[in-house]
């Protein structure tokens, strides 16, 4: 379909769904999706979805264990370990007829659900699903992935196909593939740096023709004050930074990155984006944390939901925000009332009646992750704020007019003025026991009332605000 043609973009795409339902290799004995890690609603968490490839029906339990292990593997390294509660993980289990994956050079061809193959495009380790150089059909591979995601977890953020084959291999991109080789989890962490946070490769192996666009962790800039990660470079660290034992633990400007041995620089001598088996460096960790917060905010809900409240004098009001929480601390909460910062640092705030002045009051809350892993956040990803306006009206101002005694001892009269919702007009014959005549509101005008018969003589009326 040509891009300039008009399309029906909001229709239902049936072809893949039908193909999915008719697939002879599906095993629906057990619902295909299961929860691996649950930390909150999918709309408020980052959702990792694992799909099974090359697992027979009898092996799907093993897939669920593999998915759990892979989730743990991804989330037990910094900075993800500190934000484990920000993630959910799910496993979509679909059965293949045969175990494993294709190895074309050795003649191994497996009948699998997503038709994965090693040796894609002539590279032994490149493990892909169609369309690829061996099967050009989108519907045979990626189309099936998208159909399953649409059906079971459209709120996916990270997608990983776990391939039931122990040969070394995998692939990056929007839908990652990982094999069951012992090194696969480490490759997956590295690839996650690319797909989740846009990190660049810091190694120097040439890649002719690769675009010269810089990534958050690569640069050609050598002016210390212009280096994008300058907040991490100590004044005594030389720039550019020579590699050696004295600078091994330092953040600086190390030459060799972005597939170039010279002219391109990286933040640290060693980092997972350069060498497997190491940690993410400080700059990559910072980028990953910001990437987490670019997907979910520091304020995820609030009460009251309305940002404008109308109250009357002598009323109080509570406010609340919902925030995610890192593993080892809470986010920093700061409340401001009419421009003055309050001492309350919890997610709940009660403004008492004595504090709310007649007129407009402003309550603002700022929620920030003040993690030491982030030193520069110009896009303000780690901070959200919320402001409520509370308009306080004066208390009830009512007048009793034109009282007229009825022959049976009752009285009809007119009440005029303003009163908030919940006000009451009461009558009493002894100033001790009061009977409600009206309990409603708000009132802005006049009403005519007749009091009920009271024992004894009628002696008085009063109005009270109940809020």
């Amino acid at each position: 379909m040509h891009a300039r043609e008009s399309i029906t973009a909001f229709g239902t795409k049936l072809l893949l769904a039908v193909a999915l339902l008719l697939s002879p290799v599906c095993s629906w004995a057990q619902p295909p999706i299961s929860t691996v890690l649950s930390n909150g609603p999918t709309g408020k968490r980052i959702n990792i979805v694992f799909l099974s490839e090359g697992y027979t029906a009898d092996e799907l339990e093993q897939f669920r264990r593999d998915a759990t292990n892979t989730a743990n593997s991804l989330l037990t390294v910094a900075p993800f370990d500190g934000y484990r509660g920000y993630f959910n993980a799910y496993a979509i289990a679909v059965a293949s007829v045969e175990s494993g994956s294709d190895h074309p050079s050795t003649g191994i061809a497996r009948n699998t659900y997503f038709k994965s193959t090693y040796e894609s495009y002539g590279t032994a380790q490149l493990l892909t699903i169609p369309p690829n150089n061996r099967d050009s059909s989108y519907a045979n591979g990626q189309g099936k992935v998208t159909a399953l995601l649409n059906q079971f977890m459209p709120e996916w953020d990270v997608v990983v196909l776990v391939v039931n084959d122990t040969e070394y291999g995998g692939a990056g991109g929007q839908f990652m593939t990982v094999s069951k080789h012992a090194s696969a989890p480490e490759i997956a962490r590295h690839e996650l740096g690319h797909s989740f946070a846009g990190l660049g490769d810091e190694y120097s192996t040439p890649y002719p023709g690769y675009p010269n666009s810089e990534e958050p962790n690569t640069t050609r800039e050598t002016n210390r004050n212009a280096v994008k990660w300058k907040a991490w470079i100590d004044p005594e660290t030389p720039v550019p930074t020579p590699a050696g034992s004295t600078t091994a633990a330092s953040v600086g400007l190390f030459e060799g990155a972005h597939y170039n041995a010279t002219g391109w620089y990286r933040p640290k001598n060693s980092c997972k984006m350069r060498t497997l088996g190491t940690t993410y460096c400080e700059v990559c960790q910072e980028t990953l944390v910001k990437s987490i917060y670019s997907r979910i905010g520091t304020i995820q809900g609030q009460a009251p939901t309305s940002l404008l409240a109308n109250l009357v004098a002598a009323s109080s009001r509570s406010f609340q925000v919902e925030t995610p929480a890192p593993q080892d601390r809470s986010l920093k909460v700061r409340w401001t009332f009419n421009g003055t910062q309050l001492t309350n640092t919890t997610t709940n705030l009660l403004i008492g009646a004595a504090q709310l002045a007649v007129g407009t009051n402003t309550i603002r809350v700022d929620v920030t992750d003040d993690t030491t892993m982030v030193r520069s956040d110009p896009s303000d990803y780690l901070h959200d704020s919320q402001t409520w306006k509370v308009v306080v009206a004066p208390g009830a101002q009512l007048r009793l007019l034109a009282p007229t005694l009825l022959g049976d001892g009752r009285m009809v009269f007119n009440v005029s003025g303003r009163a908030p919702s919940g006000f009451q007009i009461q009558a009493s014959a002894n100033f001790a026991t009061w009977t409600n005549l009206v309990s409603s509101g708000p009132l802005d005008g006049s009403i005519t009332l007749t009091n009920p018969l009271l024992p004894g003589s009628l002696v008085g009326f009063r109005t009270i605000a109940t809020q």
Partner: protein
Amino acid sequence: MEPGVLASPPPGPRGPVPFVKLTNQLDARSARKRAWRVLARLALTLVSGGSAVAAGGDTNRFVVLELKVTASEVSVVGATEVAGPPKPQPPGAGINFEIRSGDNAFVFSGQGPNPRVQSLCYEHLPGSGQMTNSTVTLEEGYLTLKIPSTPLATTIEFFESRRPGPSLQSLRRSLGKTVLTRP
């Protein structure tokens, strides 16, 4: 099994989730960062019974676009409206898109990775830690994007954007424009 890892029953069929306005009402600066949510709220405000979304009373939806990407253009091969609260999209390089309304007003933008680049970083020798990569640039690739479900969206333009130097302006190369219509 580690704490927090559950072997729980599957969540089952995913029904509509009540639209949550809370996160759409953040302060302006926060709201700008949450473009998805702003769009969702805009749809809630403006949709008034004329569309399928509004008729169902459920604006808590987004559209999954399946795209075919070549060197010269992006075309839509599938579109599915699904339930779920729209989430923000982090910025990044790759295939960019920009959604505009009927009067050419900006509605939303985002990006996805370039699917024509098929790559894997791996070790020279497994276990050595020393990395290399295998990267293939394909004639065509497929990409999945999520866009807001809003009647405001009438066109989507795809383009590549890259900054050739640290101090140079980004170059934008159009990959085609598609009209979005509702049945």
